């Protein structure tokens, strides 16, 4: 059981937002650019100060430290950042990341970050997040820089992770067909206000 329950979360720019993503299910979130999708995800990941409460598996955000919350609720921003020279520096030691599922050989850990393409960066950013085994996922356009084949692999990997870890997934995406494929519930955000579709 790792449901994600959002209770009247609001910041200066978004909310109040109240909704729940059931354990093992995926909810899609969409809205025009500038509507506050990323800001909402930042608040849910506790990167921005906000009011209201978020719970994962029944445990409140305020009941644990910020870093512990962010380890349990994995947030994938649209653009990934890398702070060390090699790919492997960004993965936990003895990482069990499923590199093959996204088309990488195991030697990818020795690759230099500044030689990665934008698509490789995006796929590896998802892998380095999943390697930390979060209980819930906040994914901000995880297939935006990918061709359709890589995009399908990412969808399959997230589906597989969601099922095997019974994880709640909140997926921000612009593609209507993709949202219908991956999600069982849809939320629309406009000017910071959330509505169930």
């Amino acid at each position, binding site marked *: 059981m790792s449901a994600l329950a959002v209770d009247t979360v609001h910041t200066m720019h978004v909310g109040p937002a109240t909704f729940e993503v059931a354990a093992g299910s995926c909810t899609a979130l969409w809205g025009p650019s500038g509507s506050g999708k990323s800001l909402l995800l930042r608040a849910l990941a506790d990167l*921005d*100060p906000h009011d209201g409460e978020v719970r994962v598996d029944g445990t409140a955000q305020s009941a644990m430290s910020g870093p512990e919350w962010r380890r349990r609720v994995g947030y994938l921003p649209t653009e990934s950042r*890398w702070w060390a020279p090699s790919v492997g520096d960004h993965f936990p030691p003895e990482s069990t990341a499923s590199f093959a599922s996204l088309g990488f050989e195991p030697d990818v850990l020795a690759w230099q970050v500044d030689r990665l393409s934008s698509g490789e960066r995006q796929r590896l950013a998802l892998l380095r997040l999943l390697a930390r085994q979060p209980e819930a996922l906040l994914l901000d356009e995880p297939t935006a820089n990918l061709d359709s084949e890589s995009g399908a692999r990412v969808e399959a990997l997230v589906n597989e992770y969601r099922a095997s870890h019974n994880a709640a997934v909140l997926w921000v995406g612009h593609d209507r067909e993709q949202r219908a494929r991956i999600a069982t519930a849809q939320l629309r955000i406009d000017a910071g206000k959330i509505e169930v579709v």
Partner: protein
Amino acid sequence: METIHLSPVDLSIASGLVLALAVVTGWLGLAVSRRVIIAAIRTTIQLSLVGIVLKALFAASNPLWMALVACVMLAVAAYEVRARQKRRFRGGWSFGIGGVSMFLSSFAVTVLMLLTVVQPTPWYEPRYAIPLLGMMTGNTMTGIALGLNQLSNTAFDARATIEAQLTLGSSGAESIHDIRNDAIRTGLIPMLNSMAAAGVVSLPGMMTGQILAGNAPGEAVRYQILIMFMIAAGTGFGVMAAVFIGARRLFDERDRLRLDRLK
């Protein structure tokens, strides 16, 4: 050996040189003649005033006056630290961080040296305390200003990289670790350079002064080494304190990066 006294005539010969500089820069159209004159006048007035204050202070040798002067020096230095920041901490924190870390380092080191090494009677004897404290605050101030400035500028530019680490569950201290260490190194470089170059590239001001005042070079050298070590310790601990407090202040209690605390 006696100090050779300077008469007003001696000083007017030197001021003639400054006037000549102003005239020549005027001819060349460098547009700095006015500033040369104003700076020369400021130096004269400021130093004369300091001379009067020091004369009174030395005559009185009162611990309360001494404490007051020390506090004024600290406040001015803390203000300088704040003024040299491109991105200041809001709400007086730049001033506060500078003041606290200089108090912890330059004051503590100066008092320690007065009590255990120099040992004048009384220990706060202004003739020793004021110059020592002045040299300490002047040098730690430069290091702290550099270190804090480097910290806040780099953190501002590296926002996305720091947050990428936070997002994956790192603490604030872990995410800013490298930036913090770089800032400390930056703050220490002027002190390290001046220690390495002392006597070879430049003759330190205090030593020059003591030799001009008629002291034996050996005595002047020992004092200068003492000062260099005090400055090294004071700057080192001061920069570390300032950068550590500053790096802590960049994150809140939920380990969020709070760049809104800078302006």
